[in-house]
């Protein structure tokens, strides 16, 4: 059903776009947690987990108790879940999605008989075709001769049927953990000197860097946690202007933060996490002559400056598509953007420097349609020597920009007798002259 149709039926319907990535992440977290019930837990589709609990239930006091424990814990976590326990993976899958429950041993065929054929993990087309024949439930299928079934619906159906009925084995295979970039170190003796901390940090960085290299990733943000003897934790966090995993260069960026740490009675453990990472190709460690490459040098510089001033104060200019002067370019953090070729210098001339409009005081008469013959701006008097224009720019009508509420602007390049070449505009709807830029 289309969302709009659903809305027509139920106007109060709340809807959000599905966030598949988040959902998968959440399911993955749940999968790790479910490790408490079985050594082998795997994802089952995008909305389920399957665990091989062979030999486990007695630890919880039986299958019923295990299932109760599971639901109780999930309930407490605020999760609504359905579960089923059966002899075969297929049967458990079907059961969990159709009411849940526990199928006692040897009751597979009977227990599944009333479930719809769609519970068999078959594609829509096959399911539809089966239903068209009147074969609606698994029970309707189980009794059929296999050969005619396979001939009509392919071997997949028979395989799924047999897997559900436990006639074909289907193991649960575990999944690998996603990489986690954290390293820690406990010290036999508490340390307090900055050099000692830096030395420990360097060793941690080397290990972390190896981890990152193995996954072809580079750190973008790092956090160093220092555990003091008095159980207090001090944290130093740094950002990097681009993904990096060179221990030496990263250590240098930590130096300032570590310097500011109060060691107190000493530090007994360190933990270093790269909590934001990005893909990073394996080459490019170090420049051609041993020193860092120019790119790395600039990145290092920006990391250093960014960590002190904030990365939002290290900027670059990016072109934007607008004929409104102040929106014709973006000022973006350099660490989170890539340079783009500047727009070609075509069209009307633009000033070197732009600033928010400042009134030009005209004192008296101005000729309509012409810039003022003289005006004052920033406490200086100017005489117009020559003016080119007007370039007429109207506001972007679909976008309410408070600065443009005065309506369209006529821009003029005004050469003053005093030297400066200024960008003035006039707003006919709110008559007045403003200076907004300066040319070379």
């Amino acid at each position, binding site marked *: 059903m289309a969302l*709009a149709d659903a809305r*027509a*039926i139920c106007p109060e319907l709340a809807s959000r776009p*599905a966030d598949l990535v988040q959902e998968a992440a959440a399911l993955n977290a749940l999968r790790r947690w479910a490790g408490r019930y079985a050594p082998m837990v795997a994802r089952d*589709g995008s909305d389920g987990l399957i665990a091989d609990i062979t030999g486990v239930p007695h630890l919880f006091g039986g299958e019923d108790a295990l299932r109760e424990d599971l639901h109780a814990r999930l309930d407490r976590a605020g999760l609504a879940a359905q579960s089923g326990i059966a002899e075969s993976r297929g049967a458990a899958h079907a059961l969990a999605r159709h009411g849940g429950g526990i199928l006692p041993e040897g009751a597979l065929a009977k227990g599944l008989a009333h479930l719809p054929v*769609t519970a068999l993990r078959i594609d*829509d087309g096959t399911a*539809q075709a089966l239903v068209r024949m009147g074969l*609606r439930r698994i029970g309707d299928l189980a009794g059929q001769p296999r050969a005619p079934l396979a001939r009509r619906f392919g071997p997949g159906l028979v395989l799924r049927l047999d897997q559900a009925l436990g006639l074909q084995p289907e193991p649960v295979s575990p999944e690998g953990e996603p990489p986690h970039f954290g390293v820690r170190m406990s010290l036999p003796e508490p340390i307090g000197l900055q050099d000692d901390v830096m030395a420990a940090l360097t060793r941690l960085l080397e290990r972390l860097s190896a981890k990152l290299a193995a996954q072809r990733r580079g750190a973008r943000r790092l956090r160093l946690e220092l555990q003091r003897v008095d159980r207090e934790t001090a944290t130093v966090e740094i950002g990097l202007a681009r993904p990096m995993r060179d221990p030496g260069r990263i250590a240098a960026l930590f130096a300032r933060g570590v310097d500011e740490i109060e060691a107190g009675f000493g530090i007994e453990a360190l933990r270093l996490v790269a909590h934001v990472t990005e893909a990073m190709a394996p080459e490019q460690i170090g420049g051609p002559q041993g020193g860092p490459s120019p790119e790395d040098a600039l990145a290092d510089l920006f990391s250093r400056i960014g960590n002190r001033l904030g990365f939002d104060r290290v900027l670059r200019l990016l072109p934007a598509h607008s004929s409104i002067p102040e929106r014709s370019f973006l000022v973006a953090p350099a660490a989170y953007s890539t340079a783009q070729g500047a727009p070609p210098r075509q069209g009307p001339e633009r000033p070197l420097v732009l600033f928010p409009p400042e009134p030009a005081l005209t004192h008296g008469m101005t000729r309509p349609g012409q810039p003022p013959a003289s005006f004052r701006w920033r406490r200086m008097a100017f005489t117009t020597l020559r003016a080119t224009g007007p370039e007429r720019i109207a506001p972007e009508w*679909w976008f309410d920009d408070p600065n443009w509420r005065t309506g369209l602007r006529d821009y003029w390049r005004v050469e003053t007798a005093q030297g400066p070449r200024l960008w003035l505009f006039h707003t006919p709807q709110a008559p007045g002259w403003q200076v907004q830029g300066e040319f070379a």
Partner: protein
Amino acid sequence: MTAYAELCVTSNFTFLTGASHPEELVIRAAELGLEAIAITDRNSVAGVVRAFSALKELTRLRDEAREAAGPAIRSRRVTDHSARQEVDLGTTDAPQIPPDLELPRLVTGARLVLADSDTDWLALPVDVAGWSRLTLLLSLGKRRAEKGDCLLHMNDLLEACTGMMLIALPPDPFATRPDDGALRRMHQRHPGRCFVGAAPRYDGRDQPRLDRLAALSQATGLPMVAVGDVLMHRAARRPLADVLTCLREGCTIDGIGTRRLPHGEHRLKPGHEMARMFHRYPAALRRTTEIARACAFRLDDLRYQYPDEAQDGEPAQDRLERLAREGLHWRYPSGPPQTITARVDKELRLIDDMGYAPYFLTVHDIVAFARSRGILCQGRGSAANSVVCYLLGVTEVPPESITLIFERFISKDRGEPPDIDVDFEHERREEVIQWIYDRYGRHRAGLTATVIHFRSRAAIREVGKVMGLSQDVIARLSGQIWGHSSSAPDDDRMRDAGLDPGDDRVRLAARLVSEIIGFPRHLSQHVGGFVITQGRLDELCPIENAAMEDRTIIEWDKDDIDALGLLKVDILALGMLTCIRKAFGLLADHRGLRLDLANVPTDDTRVYDMLCRADAIGVFQVESRAQLNFLPRMQPRAFYDLVCEVAIVRPGPIQGGMVHPFINRRQGKEKIEDLGPAMMEVLGRTYGVPLFQEQAMQIAVVAAGFSPSEADRLRRSLATFKRMGTIGAFRDRFVSGMLARGHAADFAARCFAQIEGFGSYGFPESHAASFARLVYVSAWLKCHHQAAFTCALLNSQPMGFYAPAQLVRDARDRGVEVRAVSVDHSSWDCTLEARPDGALALRLGFRQIKGLREEDAVWIVAARGNGYPDVESLWRRAGVGPDTLERLSEADAFAPLGLSRREALWQARALRAPAPLPLFGSDGEGGAEPQAHLPQMTLGEEVIEDYLSLRLSLRAHPVELLRPRLEGCLPHSILNDTARPVQGRAAITGLVITRQRPGTASGVIFLTLEDETGSANVVVWTKVYERFRKAVIAGRLLRVRGRLQRADGVTHLIAEQIEDLSPWLSQLGRPVVIETNDGRADETRRPPGGSIRGSARHPREQAKRLFPSRDFH
């Protein structure tokens, strides 16, 4: 004031570019006092006629203002100063034209955009020859390109552009170097006629730009001329222009970036503003008026020559007279009555005077051709209103049976071209069209265009997308539009769609939607209007390729053609003619009857009895809900009653509120008011109520003091008046004219409303008579040969008002045996089979099966022999693929073989190989398969399967199966039982067959429900609709409680409560098929952000697919 002529204007006929209608541009040019305005669309002249008509209308207004011919006639707004103030505020009213205003001249031309040069050329013809060369050139470019495109090269221009003023529009000299070589070559070829156009851009560099262009002009010798490069009539259209840019470029408004218009300066400007811009080049400004004056060509200079239609040396008039004489003989074997011969002579004299004989001959020849091919056809239209047409065999309505008003036929002083439409069978009209192309050649014959305009739905969808509204909001907004509405969504609608009408963006979007409605979007082909010429048609108007293969169209639509006085023959398609021809064919085969439209027995009382009972499902025109309700009140007993019946249930009379007076007077409940002898002559035969278009026009003349030509112009130019906003002036004049002659204000207002309604859907009497003829013939067929009639209807689908299920049901109710689709008996079409008792049974054809191809059906019939023993034999003998076999199985077409649906499906499913294997048994060894056990179907399941495959069931009605659960619901038959009427309140349940919201009934919705006993009419008032909106719009099975209302034998249920029971339907048969899936199967093909449970279907969705209704707007 500085004299200035704007020579470069892009109207909105440069689709998705220009932001103003040609009419608006012309009006604005007049307001600004421009000396001339040119309409120069991109490789097109599609908008020039609109501008031309607009200017004509302005001239009329101005002349009227000048003459000030009397207080009753003069338009108020011209004389009354305070009224003008009011008009200033309104947007819909007429432009203000002071009497002393010099109107601009209209220069027609085109902006030629070349494939091999970035310099555009404005081509402005100076005379008719120049115009012809321009249209030839455009035709050349259009015929070699895809539909809607035009491919022209510099060399084409060099060759073709004599007789035109040529203004080069070089690209911006600051961006690229203009190609002065091209300019020089053009200048060499057309000395003295070439100019360089200089358009200011308001980007701060205009003066240096003009300097550069002046230098270019110096260097090439082409004088510089000022142009405005106009895109809109006022700067306020800038947002719309940007939206159009987005539509063109396929981006949203937030992504338009620098492609937007930076300012609104591409608007029409007065001379003094242009003078300021060109203060250093006054000659460039002066030259505009010189060029405009040199372009003396006016569209009414076009000398249109109709084909002479002389044959074998026999001049047209002689031939026409000879054919008419012959007609007198065969139409009146016993000698024509005196009145007829006198009338024929009068008509022929007039035709001779006007030189219209060729036109009648063209129609005659087309009709004769169709007859020779056995294609049924029938003429109608104003000129069909003649004895001559009857004698030529163009119409079938005997002139005795209706009133023929001679003035309506053709009038001398109007110079109006005659107009005949001919309806053909819809399935075979293409043959006629291609014959016309063959006979006259594509350079002489072309279909007229239809301008496709933005209407509410498209406007909301497209503007909504541009403005960044989300898909589902757009879907909801446009989903609320019922039918072809042309109004913007109001605040309530927007709130309904979850939008805040106070939001700036939403308000903007709503404004833009209302602005863009009515904008032309593209040209399409007219349903069948042909323009034919003696000389080359492409010297008159550009010809382009249509979307359909083998069709060529001209750039003008029917209003344009009317405005220019071009003759058009309408070759229209009518499904009922196909049906009647097929029914005639069946009767010839099975009953040995040789019938045609002319010899169906007339005045058969049984036919009228049947119609009086409103037993008219399938009958042409009168089968609609409204007509069915009307029939018992109308009680038609004669042919003329049918003529009235056809004419009255139409927007014109309905808008004019004429229906009730008519029916009351006919039933004698109301006295016929005496309107005086003059009016009674006009209205006497229709009880003093105007029903027909010509009656309304005559009222304008007789009662409102219009001259005949004014009245006619009023009708013909309604479209222009509406676009120009001058309709109000006519209304004033009409109403005050009638008041002055002593008629009631209310009656006058209604008469005018009717004329407005007639503008698009009016029926002249002869028109109605032609249709009434088909009503009678189809009713006769239904009355006497129901089986053949239903069979023909089914074979002519899609057409008419009802779905096959209702047609079949109607046939069965009337005692026709209907047999199921069978692989051993059916053909593609439905057929008739003789029963032992001599009656005919209707065998459903394979065409009823959803998704079956005609080709497969033909093979099945061809390879049938003595029948098929099993499913596999169809596969082997007829080579029918497994998919088709499954479709046949699902339609239960193997039943005669003793195979149930599921068994047949099971067998078909086994045949998965693409081609039959050569030898026995699918597994080679011929070993028998183990038997499968398939559960048997219940009746409910069978019915649902029938509906799924055939959209009808011969077994049972779904409601019948649900009846035990429908306690307290009356069967429809009891409801409609006139013998024992039920009173008060009642509840009924039924499948929704039709849903109607007539535009004329102020939001009331009419539902037709059907149960196993019959159908019932439900009326849903707006208030109830608002409450039960979901059920009314989406429900398939409804339970309605309400009040019964009975009038003239028709029972309505006025709904008070509506309940949607659609989910019950899906419980009859297959359960909701897929409840969930494990996600694994479709993990990889899940659309990003799409639905997760793709196949889970709501029962309602299922019901929607199973029991589709026909929704009319």
